[in-house]
């Protein structure tokens, strides 16, 4: 009882304090050059930008876990789906692709949807005895029909200029438009997933979503017609100017000179600042909306559901629907983050969607930050991302410090060779330390 009270008292200072720590870390990274920090604003801003994107993703996870207790371990899948949007919305159309397979694809998908719909109808309306058989038959027929149109369409699209395209291409629209679209894609996927899996309890839901995440990234890797699969899409348009253009722009060069910067550095920093601005605006809007919702009867209802589903159900709350709602919204936010990330990277490389890097790391961010608390999730995200990147340097430094104590020789040499793996150790230690000294997260839920 008093434990919680103590937490309440200190939590007023927790968030600003953590914020301050992060600020100091970034300033150090930007200004000081030593074994631990790089002293470059370019890297500092680079880390910050990805940190902001991670924060958006962490917000999405926090909505699902922190508000409703839904353990989504398929984060990577929704990030990937969101990432498809920039490719489909903003890249240039591939000549001939639509003509080759567009109609076939649409027809195939129409068949697929019709099949599932028919199967669901059959399941609902047929008697116990026949529905299993009928549904199976419907599904088989539907699947065969679907493949009948899908396969040739895909073959045609993939054959179309396969070295540099081989996909259906994009619409050539502004890339910012792809952010809401990415959220929408993820929301649609989440709706379908949620319809199927949300009946499951915590860890079972986790593993089901983990599987779904894997399935989604497998689809991304293998369905070339969609976004070139493992062949990657590069050169995705940007919402901000290109560095080389800025460097070629005399007025920009002059401005940079005023600040005493060379054009290369100035352009890189300027571009990153623009990104940071965009991301911050999105993040703040999301937090505002989330906070308003959380501090209202809606938030209270969600907490009740998280605490005790049976009782919430008995008190007239439609738990299934609410779960679906928050799962879809949370996933949409994650998808939005995915789209933002691809926009920033300018590259879609599905081979990289590994659960360790996305699902687990984002989870670490949420938990370290303090689940259930939006500010916690955001600060946790930026901090953990900072550490994740810096662990690459700190790990080997740690090892260097350690081996310097050892006598020269085989052992210290082998250890130095294996020093890159200190990255994991450093990251693990940092995580354990944070959890140890702030077991309920840096900024705990009230």
């Amino acid at each position, binding site marked *: *009882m*008093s*434990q*919680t*009270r103590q937490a309440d008292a200190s939590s007023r200072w927790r968030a600003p304090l953590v914020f301050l720590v992060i600020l100091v870390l970034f300033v150090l990274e930007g200004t000081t050059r030593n074994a631990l920090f790089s002293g470059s604003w370019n890297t500092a801003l680079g880390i910050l930008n990805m940190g902001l994107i991670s924060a958006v993703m962490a917000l999405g996870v926090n909505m699902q876990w922190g508000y409703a207790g839904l353990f989504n371990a398929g984060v990577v899948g929704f990030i990937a789906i969101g990432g498809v949007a920039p490719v489909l919305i903003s890249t240039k159309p591939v000549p001939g692709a639509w003509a080759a397979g567009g109609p076939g694809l649409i027809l195939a998908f129409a068949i697929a949807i019709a099949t599932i719909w028919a199967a669901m109808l059959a399941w609902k309306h047929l008697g116990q005895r026949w529905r299993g058989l009928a549904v199976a038959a419907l599904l088989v027929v539907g699947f065969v029909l679907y493949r009948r149109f899908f396969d040739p369409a895909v073959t045609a699209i993939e054959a179309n200029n396969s070295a540099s395209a081989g996909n259906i291409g994009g619409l050539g629209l502004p890339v910012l438009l792809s952010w809401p679209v990415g959220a929408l894609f993820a929301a649609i996927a989440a709706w379908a997933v949620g319809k199927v899996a949300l009946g499951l309890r915590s860890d079972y839901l986790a593993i089901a979503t983990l599987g779904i995440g894997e399935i989604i990234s497998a689809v991304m890797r293998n369905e070339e017609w969609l976004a070139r699969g493992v062949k990657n899409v590069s050169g995705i348009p940007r919402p901000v100017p290109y560095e080389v253009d800025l460097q070629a722009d005399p007025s920009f060069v002059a401005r940079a000179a005023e600040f005493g910067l060379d054009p290369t550095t100035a352009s890189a920093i300027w571009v990153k600042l623009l990104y940071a601005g965009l991301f911050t605006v999105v993040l703040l809007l999301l937090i505002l909306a989330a906070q308003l919702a959380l501090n209202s009867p809606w938030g209270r209802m969600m907490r009740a559901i998280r605490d005790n589903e049976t009782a919430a159900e008995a008190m007239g709350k439609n738990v299934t629907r609410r779960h679906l709602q928050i799962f879809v919204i949370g996933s949409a936010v994650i998808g939005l983050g995915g789209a933002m990330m691809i926009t920033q990277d300018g590259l879609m490389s599905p081979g990289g969607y590994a659960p360790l890097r996305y699902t687990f790391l984002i989870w670490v961010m949420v938990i370290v930050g303090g689940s259930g608390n939006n500010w916690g999730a955001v600060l946790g995200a930026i901090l953990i991302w900072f550490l994740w990147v810096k662990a690459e340097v700190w790990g080997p430094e740690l090892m260097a410090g350690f081996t310097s104590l050892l006598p020269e020789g085989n052992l210290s040499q082998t250890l130095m060779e294996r020093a890159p793996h200190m990255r994991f150790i450093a990251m693990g230690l940092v995580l354990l330390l944070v959890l140890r000294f702030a077991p309920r997260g840096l900024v705990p839920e009230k």
Partner: protein
Amino acid sequence: MTQAYLSASQMRGGYGKADILNDCTITVERGQIAVIVGPNGAGKSTAMKAVFGMLNLREGAVLLDGEDITRLSPQERVRKGMGFVPQTHNIFPSMTVEENLEMGAFIRDDDYRETIAQVYELFPAVADKRRQNAGELSGGQRQQVAVGRALMTRPSLLMLDEPTAGVSPIVMDELFDRIIEIARTGISILMVEQNARQALEIADIGYVLVQGTNRYTDTGKALMADPDVRRTFLGG
């Protein structure tokens, strides 16, 4: 007078900063039945936990048979002969009824089959379900298993937190009969009850606890006879 078998004196403590117990004293003689009654939230369960060492006491001491056990951990107290049935969460839900009873006999090295048979005799409804997981039992059946588990320990001090909550009248009668019997064998019994009139009926000593302090202490009969106590704590 000789030292009481259990003597928990001037206990002060709670779950966090605020104290739930304030100068609360409870003693039980060997072979006595002591009953704690009081309004909801008075601190009865907290007092039981304190006696059992599941709560950090800020003040006060717990003596068992003259020995100071204030610093001992609960499982050490079990080995000293204390048995406890908590108010809630008092069974192992995914173990069978029989295994629940076996767990009660965890610290016993002798043959406990006879004790099991005795428990089944006491609670025939539960005997039918011996191979079933305790989590699938009805509320009252669970309660019976919980008491049965504590009986398995063969304790010298048996602590029961509302053992009759949710059990049917016939079983309650059996239970009280049995408790009297147990006490006669020299085992001390400390229990919290809301079926207070029946409990005080068999109690050698009764405590009325209000806001963590002893409000009345007397023999069961005397408390029953006190109109004030009856009206405010025993339901008339």
